[in-house]
């Protein structure tokens, strides 16, 4: 276990807060992308010697999370002509505070989950749980469709973070899980956003209220 793991996980955690507290969509895309790339590189540090298969996973993850998906989202952003999340359901300050509370609770909860010896003392589980929480928060409180997709990506990052612990033991599962989820997210939601853009004039999902009770 490299001693650089914990600081890197802290950086990843801080990016959660950048994503939660900022209203410029471009900045949030960058934050999630940087976090994705960081997590993509983590396997190299977690498991010292890395085989070809692992390297391939690293390369694909970094490419996908860091470059392809952000490009795709920026393109969607331009097409839909949105720049800012104007007024989320929970305002930015409260989102930050809720994220902080969630991170605190994640640390408490993670201490009840005993880690195997080779992973003991690292921040994987709290970082993973708090990223999942931050993603979930963004998903449920943001109104712009792109922000909701970004929240989903953040959730994915959190799950991937935990999956890194299983990388040696069950690489297949982690690979399949992540890639499949990412493809689902991007292509399906991208198509939907495209259609939403065509049917409605903006991709604010607060417009999608015609089916309310």
């Amino acid at each position, binding site marked *: 276990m490299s*001693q650089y793991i*914990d*600081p890197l996980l*802290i950086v990843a*955690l*801080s990016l959660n*807060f*950048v994503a939660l*507290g900022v*209203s410029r969509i471009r900045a949030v895309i960058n934050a999630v992308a940087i976090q994705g790339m960081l997590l993509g590189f983590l396997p190299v540090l977690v498991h010292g010697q890395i085989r070809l298969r692992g390297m391939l996973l690293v390369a694909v993850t970094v490419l996908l999370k860091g470059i392809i998906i952000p490009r795709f989202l920026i393109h969607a952003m331009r097409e839909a002509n949105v720049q800012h999340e104007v007024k989320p359901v929970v305002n*930015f*300050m409260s989102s*930050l*505070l809720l994220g*902080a509370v969630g*991170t*605190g609770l994640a*640390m408490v909860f993670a*201490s009840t989950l005993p880690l195997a010896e080779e992973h003991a003392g690292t921040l994987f589980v709290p970082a993973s749980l708090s990223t999942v929480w931050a993603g979930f928060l963004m998903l449920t409180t943001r109104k712009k469709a792109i922000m909701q997709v970004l929240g989903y990506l953040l959730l994915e990052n959190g799950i991937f973070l935990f999956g890194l612990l299983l990388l040696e033991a069950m690489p297949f599962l982690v690979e399949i899980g992540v890639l499949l989820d990412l493809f689902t997210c991007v292509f399906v939601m991208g198509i939907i956003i495209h259609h939403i853009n065509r049917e409605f004039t903006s991709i604010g999902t607060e417009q999608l209220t015609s089916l309310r009770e």
Partner: protein
Amino acid sequence: MTAITNQIIHVLLAITVPPLLLGVVAKTKALFAGRVGPPLLQPYYDLIRLMQKGSVFSTTTTWVFRAGPVVALVTAALAALLVPLTADSAPLSFTGDLILLAYLFGLGRFFTALAALDTGSSFEGMGAAREVTFSCLAEPAFFMGLLVLVKLSGSLQLSVMLGSTLAAHWPTAGASLALVLISWFIVLLAENSRIPFDDPNTHLELTMIHEVMVLDHSGPAYGMILYGAALKLFVFGTLIVRLALPWETGTLAADWLIFGGGILGVAVLIGIVESSMARLRLTHVPILLVAACLLSAFGIVLLVR
């Protein structure tokens, strides 16, 4: 013997260096903008010029208005004496002096705000309200960072907290210290009215925060304010330098060179930040300050985990 030498050098540097920092910041910003910019020693010339002028005092003001700049200067100077520039150079040092540090700044800010309100002008009052709010939010971040240092060093004395033992903690508590560093840099920007919190170069009163509070001062009073602000920047910069570069080489000259390089580096960094960012919307400023608080808070959480 070396302790006394260190303290003398400390006092000398604290008197002479602060305006240079302002000059370095201005020069960096000019270089970024592709200009030549004012000379590095321009703040000194400004101070000398201001000291030779006469003062104009509004008839609506009272003694508070005259006291404001004096208190600001004195508190900043006292703070400069508390914070160690190298490991053991602080002339004043006692247990609990970290609280005094924070509240010296508080006192200075209080009197500046009072002096601003004393003029009876609405611009100054607006600026005072904003400044006080932001400092309110920045203070927890500052204190939590101090808490991290207290926990690590086990002492309530600034000289010990930022002293020679700090270097040993970086490998083990590096994540916490890094978080505090980032948090304190944000606090530095907030307390010294730098971008992204306040634009020191704006001439539009409605957009000012700190500048507008000192709008009515002139002559030597204004010189005192300028110098006090420079001292405040110097003190905060020192905190950053001590946190980031706590290593001691053992030789006098090398230690002071490290400090000199560090403090100028902080000034350059401020210049870079000011050149590459725009001011934040007023409503977004609390978000950044709360983020700084959260960073410090996580520094503590990581320590006690």
